[in-house]
């Protein structure tokens, strides 16, 4: 990424030299960060905010934006609540902010997609763009896709397909249990698992599927007992935040021996909660982890940790997102959301570990994925636990591509 920042920096410098000297007052590109900053998922939202601020500072320092423009991150708390998010969106729009960054909660993402397309239809010339770095309900880039929405994380189907591909070569795993949060995202995980796993290996049995209410469960031991009783070999869960760490903590206390296939165990609290008991057993599917050998990323991991000691660098895709946004602004010389959106469509960037591609048909980002397992023999650990990830499989961009049903409505 550093390389990329440097590239854009040089481009900017060239542009500045070549540009006529009539410099207007440097514009601030404000990003409304709408995510949970209070309540049960506050730690997740604060982590993302730290990432985004870190990236914005770096890009500003490298003068990555043209004409002396700088990024500013303006946080809004939405308590992972759909209607609170719309109030936050209204507030952001009232302040004149036109780029919205949001990640947590597919329910929130759906509400924002809907509200932003309504707003953009009613207020031509004041459009708002929605950069989504973590909500991965497949509907967002399929049946509910929108021109103003861009998804920067691989969606549920892509991730589950990768897990299924792995399980195809794992005859020791036959009985799979699904436990997920009771909302669109959790249901999408369960649906994808039920579709992809038996397809990859017909002898896989889904021995149980539970949905529990979002955030509200404080004691997962009854669920663990159920998983235990079902004779489970592997658990597939999309849980995140406290729902992840408490579930995995209960699993450890209940002496659950099954393997875990998770989306977010590396995100705050999960690894600390399971500790040594998770080594060799807990897996995560994500676009990156700290032990993917790469000097550029090592530098970011270290300096981020120095600046924000409570958090680990986790959202690799946020870096990709900011690079793409920066390039779009540089390419078009405009901060107008419509120009940015058209520039992002089909954009390819080189990230430190490989290429990323924004598919124009559905605004879904495709990137390299890693299936990784917890190990206690690592260079970079998670939350100072001494435990971190090692790669099981690296899935290349081309192998992650799934078809889309999106029928994009573009502004004429």
């Amino acid at each position, binding site marked *: 990424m550093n390389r990329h920042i440097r590239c854009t920096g040089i481009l900017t410098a060239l542009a500045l030299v070549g540009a006529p000297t009539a410099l207007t007052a440097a514009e601030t590109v404000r990003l409304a960060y709408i995510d949970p*900053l209070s*309540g049960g998922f506050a730690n997740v939202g604060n982590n993302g905010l730290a990432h985004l601020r870190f990236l914005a500072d770096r890009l500003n320092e490298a003068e990555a934006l043209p004409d002396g423009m700088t990024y500013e991150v303006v946080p809004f708390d939405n308590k992972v609540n759909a209607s609170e998010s719309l109030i936050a969106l209204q507030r952001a729009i009232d302040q004149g902010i036109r780029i919205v960054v949001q990640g947590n909660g597919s329910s929130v993402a759906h509400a924002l997609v809907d509200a932003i397309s309504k707003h953009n239809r009613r207020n031509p010339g004041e459009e708002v763009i929605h950069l989504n770095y973590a909500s991965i309900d497949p509907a967002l880039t399929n049946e509910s896709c929108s021109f103003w929405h861009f998804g920067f994380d691989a969606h549920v189907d892509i991730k589950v397909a990768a897990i299924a591909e792995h399980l195809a070569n794992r005859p020791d795993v036959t009985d799979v249990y699904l436990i997920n949060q009771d909302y669109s995202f959790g249901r999408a995980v369960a649906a994808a698992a039920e579709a992809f796993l038996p397809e990859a290996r017909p002898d896989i049995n889904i021995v149980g599927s539970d949905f529990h209410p979002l955030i*509200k469960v404080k*004691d997962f031991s*009854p669920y663990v007992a*159920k998983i*235990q*009783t079902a004779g489970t070999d592997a658990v597939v869960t999309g849980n995140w935040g406290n729902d992840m760490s408490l579930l995995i903590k209960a699993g450890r206390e209940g002496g659950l021996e099954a393997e875990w296939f998770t989306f977010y165990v590396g995100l705050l609290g999960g690894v600390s909660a399971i500790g040594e008991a998770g080594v060799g057993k807990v897996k995560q599917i994500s676009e990156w982890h700290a032990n993917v050998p790469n000097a550029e990323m090592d530098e970011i991991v270290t300096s981020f940790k120095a600046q924000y000691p409570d958090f680990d660098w986790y959202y690799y895709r946020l870096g990709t997102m900011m690079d793409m946004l920066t390039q779009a602004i540089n390419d078009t010389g405009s901060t107008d959301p419509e120009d940015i959106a058209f520039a992002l469509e089909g954009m390819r960037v080189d990230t430190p570990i490989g290429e990323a591609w924004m598919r124009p048909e559905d605004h879904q980002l495709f990137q390299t994925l890693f299936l990784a397992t917890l190990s206690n023999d690592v260079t970079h650990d998670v939350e100072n636990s001494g435990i971190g990830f090692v790669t099981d499989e690296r899935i290349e961009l081309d192998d992650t591509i799934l078809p889309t049903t999106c029928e994009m409505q573009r502004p004429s």
Partner: protein
Amino acid sequence: MDTAFFFLFNGIVYGLLLFMLSSGLTLIFSMMGVLNFAHASFYMLGAYFAYQISTHIGFWPALIFAPLIVGCLGAVIERYGLRTVHRHGHVAELLFTFGLALLIEEIVILIWGRNPMPYSVPSELDFALFEIAGNSYSAYKIFMMLVSISMLLFLYGIIARTRIGMIIQAALTHPETVDTLGHNVSRVFMLVFGVGTGLAGLAGVIGGNAFVTEPGMARALGTIVFVVIIVGGLGSLTGAFVASLLLGVIQTTAVAVDVSLADLVATVGITTSAADANDLMHKTLSQVAPILPYLFMVLMLISRPRGLFGTRDA
């Protein structure tokens, strides 16, 4: 069957924790006529104090000191807050404790932030004591059971055997008479409030690390404790005990039951269309379970406001 036992065990542990909260609340309500909205907030304070103390001098001193601090705080709040609003009537008292609950939550956020605290089970007790049918029973949960049972036996001992216990018992049923007999009822109030909140604090010390210590923990428990004391019967410790265990078991075991109304109907030969899974008929018991306590509470208030074991109306 063994799994059923595991659920029962978990339910009892949780139920005993509820009882530690509801016993104090019952005493306070029946003596002062105040439903202390902030009761679960003292539970939360107990957990946070215990976390703070345990980072410096360990879990065991915290087990003693945190409830004491919470109890003293409770007594002070009774003396300088609750007693001041008493002259404005019950509605004002209710509003005071309501505002207090809100404020305590904000103060906790102010001091400790919004993230969950890494308050964990002491390493001495962090192992599986025994295992039945693949389900391991953690030593800490057994410890929780022991603490709550011994605490409650102790409390019963005080109420049944000592002079102050007699006065409390008398004040429960005949507060005016006790007052005219020359006992300082308001000091008894302060004491009961202190002990009640201290007990909630103790529950926080042992519950905070078993579950999770975060600013929302008071809210999650707050109304459940009300349900317990109303269903059990206001002023009845026995009722609170039975209701606590009942609710504890219901809340933990319902998760395991995947039976829906449609399944029940199907057993007698009627099949319904499985087209709409959102339909009420296809909700499993585990999904319906969260509303049961409140349904029970409302029905009880309407039909029998004195509760299961209560002797007088609220």
